[in-house]
């Protein structure tokens, strides 16, 4: 079949039009992709800001928790020791030599205990330093105080958890641990607490289990009272992790947090 010159010319014209339209769409695509890139960049900056805000909030909460423990310890522990010291001193009868010697020895023992307690308090006051020594060390330190309450049988299990050096992530994870322990102290009516910190593949897994009264997870999450639980879930997600909360009323609760450390 013979193609006429006019047909060839039309074909060339049509092809050229298509060849003109193609770059136009390409340019529009690049511009629209670039706009999306801008939006994505803005979102990334916003997420970073949110993360930094949340981290700051977490650090403040850790400090607040430390101060609460200090206040509690000053009142219930050191305060009591000093009161006992004062009472012992005021009851000394200098004419009764033997009794005086015994009481002075008691006062000395009380003063030494007070000094020991004050030293321990001073270590606790450097809350941020605790986290900088690693999550395991921070949890161990916090549990020392929990054990003193004598309200719980505390078990801490760990499998050679190392310090990642990601201070922000470990601070948030430590704060989650504090929040969960606080919830147990305030609401669970538990007698035993099991804390397990493990490294499984590329994840930190923190499991906290108690034998308290438990709660209805869905119900608590629906209510505003569930802010603590919401925070646990939200902050776990923020550090690219996840939180699982399992509880049956009257049967304790298990909270598991998985966080990638890479």
């Amino acid at each position, binding site marked *: 079949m013979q193609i006429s010159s006019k047909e060839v010319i039309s074909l*060339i014209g049509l092809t050229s039009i298509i060849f003109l339209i193609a770059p136009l769409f390409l340019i529009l695509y690049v511009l629209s992709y670039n706009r999306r890139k801008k939006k994505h960049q803005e979102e990334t900056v916003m997420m970073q800001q949110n993360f930094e805000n949340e981290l700051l909030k977490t650090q403040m909460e850790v400090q607040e928790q430390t101060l609460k423990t200090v206040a509690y310890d000053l009142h219930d522990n050191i305060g009591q020791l000093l009161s006992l010291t004062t009472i012992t001193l005021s009851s000394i009868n200098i004419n009764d030599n033997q009794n005086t010697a015994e009481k002075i020895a008691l006062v000395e023992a009380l003063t030494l205990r007070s000094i020991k307690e004050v030293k321990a308090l001073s270590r606790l006051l450097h809350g941020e330093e605790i986290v900088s020594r690693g999550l395991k060390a921070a949890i161990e330190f916090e549990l020392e105080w929990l054990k003193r309450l004598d309200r719980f049988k505390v078990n801490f299990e760990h499998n050679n958890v190392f310090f990642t050096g990601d201070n922000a992530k470990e601070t948030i994870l430590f704060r989650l641990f504090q929040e969960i322990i606080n919830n147990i102290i305030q609401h669970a009516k538990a007698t035993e607490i099991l804390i397990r910190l493990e490294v499984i593949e590329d994840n930190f897994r923190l499991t906290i289990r108690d034998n308290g009264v438990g709660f209805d997870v869905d119900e608590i999450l629906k209510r505003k009272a569930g802010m603590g639980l919401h925070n646990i879930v939200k902050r776990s997600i923020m550090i690219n992790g996840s939180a699982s909360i399992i509880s049956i009323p009257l049967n304790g609760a298990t909270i598991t947090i998985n966080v990638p450390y890479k």
Partner: protein
Amino acid sequence: MIFITVNTVSELLCLLAAIVFLNKEKTTAWRLFIPFLLLTCIVEVAGIYIREFVHTSNYALYNVYVLFECGFTSYFFFYLYKAYHYKPIWLFTWLGLFAVMYIIDLLHHNFGQFVSTTASVMSVVFVLASLYFYYLKLKDEHFEPLIFSAPFWWVSGTLFFYFGSTACNNFLDYLSEYERITFSRSIRYIIYNILDIVMYIFWSYAFICRYRQRKSSPSLG
């Protein structure tokens, strides 16, 4: 009046834009636009003069011009790629290939025709270079407002011209034969007019963007 055509006017306006917006430019690649566009205008007018007054074919003139066109455009693409750490070896390899192709093309036609094969290959390479520039921009995590990006609009104008002229280039031999008598009303002439207008508008806008960029960052010159 014969010298006032869509091509000459659009080239001249683009040259004026280059003079106004790039005269204080410190970057060589951008400054080179002024002599290159001046050369383009001179070649265009000389081409018309040879065709209309000397009554001979002007392919020899365009055979020389294509060397400058390829040299400058390749150098400018290289300047754009340099920001992405590309080495000069790429530029020299391409220019070497072009030179070999050009000589073979000339010898093949006994210096008696326009080097259309070389020009077609050059167009394809510039289209690929433009597309690759887009790819680099899309891949680049650093955000840049492309609406005001001088390199982006220069590349877009270049892509329009070389991509749009592909069909004409491929049928050049056929069209040359057919258009011998009625060149001024031919499809090729119309297409090239459109392509020239589009490219020079994009380039002029690129010069304005470059001027704005220079004003906002005096370190550019």
